[in-house]
């Protein structure tokens, strides 16, 4: 069984699966249950400044979208940072860390954007013996209206400034949590790096309205007839999160900056994908909120099995896919594939035909007895048939060998060549 021990910016944990700062990590009771279940670490739910506790709504906090069989695909929330007194949280953090020395315990922080507020909170948490801090520059709802959370995360200069304060007033490892509600995630990551951050974590939640109540004409979750945008998370956001992780991992300006991957991680496979794209560890929330803490058992066993099968260590996985993330212009335009339908696996639903005939390239033929075959002379290998087929691996993309003639174009499959040298590229023609 592979060793999953993780060392993320000096913070050690028995596995790379941490619970993200969120409702599951709001108090000792939950965190201890998580540790008992096997989670490697937690980022304690965001603490604010000393003072009257934060107030939450007293109606629904979550909205959702579902797939078939009501499988939860996306969740959003309008919950704020912890609404428990600072002193209670600090006391519990201390107790938990003492009891669970081998687990990572990072504290998430969000206080007003002035140096004194940050200096004060950092001094308050110092004797909890927590392993590090995560700066919550990400929450897009509620606190952002008060100049915190994503309101900071959307301004790289603020990120740099606050990170600098934190590094100045604390010796703890500092993770900056980024908001995805920006146009280019590399800019805030660069700012965090300039400010001295030890790592970034991403993504925080995405601005969203999950559904509209068609009787009351209000967004859900609805509070007394009104709704507001909430932070979107869960499996639906994973593709967005992975792109952002990869952008930071492969950018020249941020390459090497440790990343804690967050966003829809539900299974060991999701975790492995984030790590392959450069995440040193991962944080999970929605999956735990959907299925409970026990899912970490599958994550541990699955990642172990995968690493054993590949005969690689955890660190070998991190960033392994990053060199293969490239720009469109460098993709091989001489790579030619054709869809192939395995007739033994085909259940004859005809979805590939409908998709191709109605919306793509008319490259699938349907016989009167419902045999579906690919017309190689029309197939552009778009992959839509693969994606709509309900049977796993029934339709596959088969690459053509070099030198073979593509029946669609009549041209031979040639050597690697991309857009930068393509004759149709105006910038090439201009030269």
């Amino acid at each position: 069984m592979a060793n999953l021990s993780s060392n993320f910016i000096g913070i050690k944990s028995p596995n790379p699966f941490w619970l993200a700062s969120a409702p599951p990590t709001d108090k000792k009771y939950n965190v201890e249950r998580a540790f008992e279940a096997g989670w490697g670490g937690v980022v304690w739910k965001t603490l604010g400044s000393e003072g009257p506790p934060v107030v939450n709504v007293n109606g629904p906090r979550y909205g959702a979208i579902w797939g078939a069989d009501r499988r939860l695909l996306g969740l959003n929330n309008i919950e704020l940072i912890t609404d428990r007194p600072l002193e209670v949280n600090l006391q519990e953090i201390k107790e938990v860390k003492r009891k669970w020395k081998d687990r990572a315990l990072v504290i998430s922080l969000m206080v007003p954007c002035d140096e004194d507020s940050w200096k004060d909170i950092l001094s308050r948490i110092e004797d909890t013996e927590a392993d590090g801090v995560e700066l919550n520059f990400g929450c897009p709802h509620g606190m952002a209206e008060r100049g915190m959370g994503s309101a900071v995360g959307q301004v790289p200069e603020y990120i740099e400034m606050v990170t600098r304060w934190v590094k100045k007033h604390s010796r703890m490892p500092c993770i900056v949590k980024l908001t995805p509600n920006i146009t280019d995630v590399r800019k805030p990551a660069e700012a965090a790096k300039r400010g001295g951050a030890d790592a970034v974590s991403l993504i925080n939640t995405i601005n969203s309205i999950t559904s509209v109540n068609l009787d009351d004409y209000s967004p859900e979750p609805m509070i007394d007839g009104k709704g507001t945008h909430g932070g979107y998370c869960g499996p639906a956001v994973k593709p967005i999160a992975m792109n952002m992780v990869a952008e930071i991992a492969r950018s020249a300006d941020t390459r090497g900056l440790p990343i804690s991957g967050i966003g829809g991680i539900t299974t060991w496979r999701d975790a492995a994908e984030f790590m392959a794209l450069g995440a040193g560890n991962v944080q999970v929330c929605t999956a735990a909120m959907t299925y409970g803490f026990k899912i970490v058992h599958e994550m541990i066993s699955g990642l172990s099995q995968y690493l054993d099968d590949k005969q690689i260590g955890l660190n070998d996985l991190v960033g392994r896919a990053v060199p293969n993330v490239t720009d469109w212009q460098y993709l091989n335009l001489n790579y030619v594939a054709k869809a192939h339908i395995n007739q033994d696996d085909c259940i004859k639903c005809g979805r590939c035909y409908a998709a191709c005939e109605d919306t793509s390239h008319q490259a699938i033929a349907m016989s009167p007895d419902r045999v579906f075959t690919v017309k190689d002379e029309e197939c552009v290998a778009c992959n839509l048939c693969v994606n709509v087929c309900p049977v796993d691996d029934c339709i596959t993309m088969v690459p053509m060998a070099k030198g073979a003639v593509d029946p669609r174009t009549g041209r031979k499959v040639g050597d690697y060549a991309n857009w930068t040298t393509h004759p149709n590229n105006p910038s090439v023609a201009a030269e």
Partner: protein
Amino acid sequence: MSNSPLTPGIVPARLSEASYARNFADHTPALDRHEAQVAADRCYFCHDAPCITACPTSIDIPLFIRQIATGTPEAAAATIWSQNILGGMCARVCPTETLCEEACVREAAEGKPVEIGQLQRFATDTAMAKGLHPFERAARTGKRVAVVGAGPAGLACAHRLALHGHDVVVFERRPKAGGLNEYGIASYKATGGFAQREVDWLLQIGGIEIRTGMELGRDVTLDQLKADYDAVFIGVGLAGVNALRAEGEDKAGVRDAVDFIAELRQAADLSKLPVGRDVVVIGGGMTAVDAAVQSKLLGAETVTIVYRRGQEKMSASGYEQDHAVQTGVRIIHNAAPVRVIGNGHAEGVEFAYTSDGPGGLKLSAETFTLKADQVFKAIGQTLSGTPAGLAVEGGKLAGHSGKVWVGGDCAAGGEDLTVTAVAEGRDAAEAIHAALTGA
């Protein structure tokens, strides 16, 4: 409970009252909203879906399931009824395992088809419970059509004709409309008086008058109908019953299974319905299964279906056969009745073993005898009382001629199924409409 399953002879009240209620409760309870949602989620929304092709009425099944999945079962019901106005009954009695559900691609994928029949019932029950009848009759055309037989074919024909604005008079020989839905379906498949509720619901279209107690050839003649109406539709079903042609067939205790089933359906109190201690049902179709299972449910001690050919030739579906066996009915294949034994009243039936070869069915000399105080004949129904002037082909009415159209079990072509009858009645109505309006 004055008697028990062991009481000899054909007697009532073999069971407790609670047993009757339990035995004749809805055999396949309706899906609730959650169950329907889960079942609907499984549909792949196939292109040119095989289930539609397999449905004799060509209901757009993927569409109605998608309408259920998106929270509009009322729209789903409209989709169903636009093709099959008796979609509620068909959802209950169709042998879906040999029709739509057999064709479902998930049957190929996992051996578990989408529960199309149950979903259809969910949609139609939901809409009927809301009192919806999503059809509006066209302006009256002034044309009058006579429909003979108020079974599935006649009702489907009448509704479609009325929808197009024609005035329809339905002549029905029995006291109630519904045909086999009312008189010929096992009781546990259509509980709660569903057949009559569906007829009442169907009549909401308006323009349909049903005259019961009117038999073609006895109370009204075809010539009269042709003279009085612009068109005539014949959907009289198969009122005749095949004879056993076995010695002793006329002994007391031997009767037609269809009569028993009809009597049971009309019985107000099942505990008053007599049934034998040892029941033998001869035949291999749905009627045999319905009679056998219901005999068992009425408290018969032993019930045996005997079919003269092999299991693969039984016209009762595998699902129905399994249901019979689970209820405690024994099924014997490859045996044919030779004679009914008994002194005036049936006491047993002697069977010869058979072999089914290229030369046809052969009875062997070897025989066996089953104890039987009640014997049901379920070896097929036939056309009876064919009105003069109608062509017959293969024992059934041949088809449209002049002002007369035919459909349902009495007509040639198609399986003898409720859903097929509905399709034929509906299509005949369209043909009549076209003929009357020149459309």
